[in-house]
């Protein structure tokens, strides 16, 4: 007999969630505008500093194609490149006049290295096979940011070199190579950044923006109807609905809605950018949403009052996002913050969002996100079952 109530209870929650969509979308829109403004401002501020650093390049042995490439690289917006003699470059690095030195070797002796495929050079850097290029970092900016810049610079070299190849109208290019030329951005991003486990800055900020929007909008949305329904829940419990039903219903109605919304959003993004869907990316973004929202549910469970819990959620969201480097990159924050960030729940979901935009995932981040999810779910269960549910305590 009680199963009838239970079934109807879940149906009601589904219907209620559907009815809330216009309100939810309005909140998301407002939060998205605020987040976009915030992220844009921060990107501008830090992007400006990042692109102004000086990097030296030193040729161990001159190479025709990389000389050509470095001409383009020097014009790039990522860093100011200047050719140095090796000793002078090292002295400049010591004096902090430059942020990094690129030592370019003649790679013709490297095993399996095909000079006709400059993308191999990039792969060599990240496979610790330093026969081609070595980077040395100074103390002006952290290794992480310089590393990113070096990659970008190298990409410029690769592109420039290929452009020259292309213009010279060689006829013996393989089809595969032509395909690479046409889709080089995509190819480069997928191979290099996926394998390295790192993400480019624009995706980093994009991922953070999604995390920020999800956390702030869900903080507000979960408050809808929270106190309005407490009387209903109080009486519905007489029909045999258990604490587990109430717990599960929050996850199904609230997280279900947001994770589907994320999946659809990411799928649309992928289609617009790449004309195809990548299921792994969609699923990972949904996992990221589930992790973030389980944190919001935990906070709402701890604080039964709607206003208090909503404000606390927003407060915690901003603090967590800051500590996990979502608002200002960790590179620009004290080392202690970077150490704390390792233990902050929001770090892994936002990294997942960032990686999602490549369509390829890093297994380690997924595992970390799953661990975060397990922690929040267990904590929420403990709070729900030991304190009684939030409605009862009102």
């Amino acid at each position, binding site marked *: 007999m009680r199963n009838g109530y239970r079934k109807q209870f879940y149906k009601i929650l589904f219907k209620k969630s559907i009815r809330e969509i216009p309100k939810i979308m309005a909140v998301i829109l407002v939060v998205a505008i605020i987040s976009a403004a915030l992220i844009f401002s921060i990107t501008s501020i830090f992007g400006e500093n990042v692109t102004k650093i000086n990097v030296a390049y030193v040729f161990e042995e001159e190479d025709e194609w990389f000389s050509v490439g470095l001409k383009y690289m020097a014009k790039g917006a990522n860093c100011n490149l200047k050719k140095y003699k090796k000793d002078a470059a090292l002295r400049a690095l010591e004096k902090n006049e430059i942020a990094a030195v690129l030592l370019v070797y003649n790679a013709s002796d490297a095993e399996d290295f095909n000079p006709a495929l400059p993308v191999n050079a990039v792969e060599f850097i990240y496979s610790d096979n330093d026969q081609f290029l070595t980077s040395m970092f100074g103390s002006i900016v952290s290794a992480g940011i310089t590393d990113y810049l070096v990659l970008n610079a190298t990409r410029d070299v690769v592109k420039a070199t290929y452009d020259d190849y292309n213009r010279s109208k060689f006829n013996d290019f393989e089809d595969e190579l032509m395909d690479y030329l046409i889709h080089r951005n995509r190819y480069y991003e997928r191979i290099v950044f996926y394998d390295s486990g790192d993400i480019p800055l624009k995706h980093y900020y994009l991922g953070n923006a999604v995390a920020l929007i999800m956390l702030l909008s869900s903080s507000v949305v979960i408050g809808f109807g929270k106190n*309005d329904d407490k009387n209903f829940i109080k009486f519905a419990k007489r029909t045999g609905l258990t604490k587990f039903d109430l717990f599960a219903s929050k996850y199904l109605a609230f997280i279900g809605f947001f994770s589907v919304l994320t999946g659809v959003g990411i799928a649309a993004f992928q289609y617009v950018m790449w004309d195809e869907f990548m299921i792994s990316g969609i699923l990972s973004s949904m996992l990221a949403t589930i992790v973030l929202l389980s944190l919001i549910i935990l906070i709402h469970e701890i604080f039964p009052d709607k206003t208090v819990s909503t404000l606390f959620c927003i407060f915690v969201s901003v603090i967590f996002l800051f500590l996990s480097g979502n608002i200002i990159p960790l590179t620009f924050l004290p080392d202690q913050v970077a150490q704390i960030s390792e233990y902050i729940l929001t770090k892994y979901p936002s990294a997942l969002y960032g990686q999602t935009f490549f369509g390829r995932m890093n297994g380690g981040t997924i595992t970390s996100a799953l661990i975060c999810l397990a922690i929040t779910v267990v904590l929420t269960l403990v709070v729900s079952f030991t304190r009684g549910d939030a409605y009862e305590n009102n």
Partner: protein
Amino acid sequence: MDNLSLEISNLYKRYKKNVLFEDAALSVKGGDCIALVGENGCGKSTLLNMIAGIIKCDKGNITFNIDGNEVPLNKSWQYVSYVPQHNSLIDSLSAYDNLLFWYQGDKAKLDKDLKEGLIKELGINEYINKRVSRMSGGMQKRVSIACALANNPKILLLDEANASLDIVCKLQIQKMLQKYASLGNIVIHSTHEEGDIGVCNKIFYIAGGKITEVPVTSLKEIFKDKL
């Protein structure tokens, strides 16, 4: 009617430092429409909550007997319905959707009751598809009562069901309660309304931790010592 009864004995209930009930007792049988009266904070709502099984008493017995069989308290929800002071509806859904939960999704039964059942007399058909949040207090109260009647309960508990309602709404609800009790059921109504007293056949006065039956008279008469 002898096939239905509610017996409360040796009831003790403390709320924080206040003793609400101390060795209190109450006996009601099928067909009774009773009014619970008393000053604010005397424990009327607490008593209804205990009968409904929402909160537990500190000590004492609350037993239901149906056709000579005692109903365990954990099964009482099937026979006891409660209309709380503040509505227990989901505001963002329609009256129909709210009712459907209490009818366990049985649309056929709900539609039948709306056409010819007791809830028809509550006059909710005209706004059955209206969202609860857009209804007036009186409309919401009628829907709350309809929800409580969904399971054909034997005992209907109402906590100030007529407070702040217009006279037409009050009279409709009173008429429905009278009819409901006349079918052999029990109605227990916590109230401060003179009109509600008029439709009840017993009045219980709660004061000093005791529940005392008083003659059916006016509220002024009951509270004359306090005035």
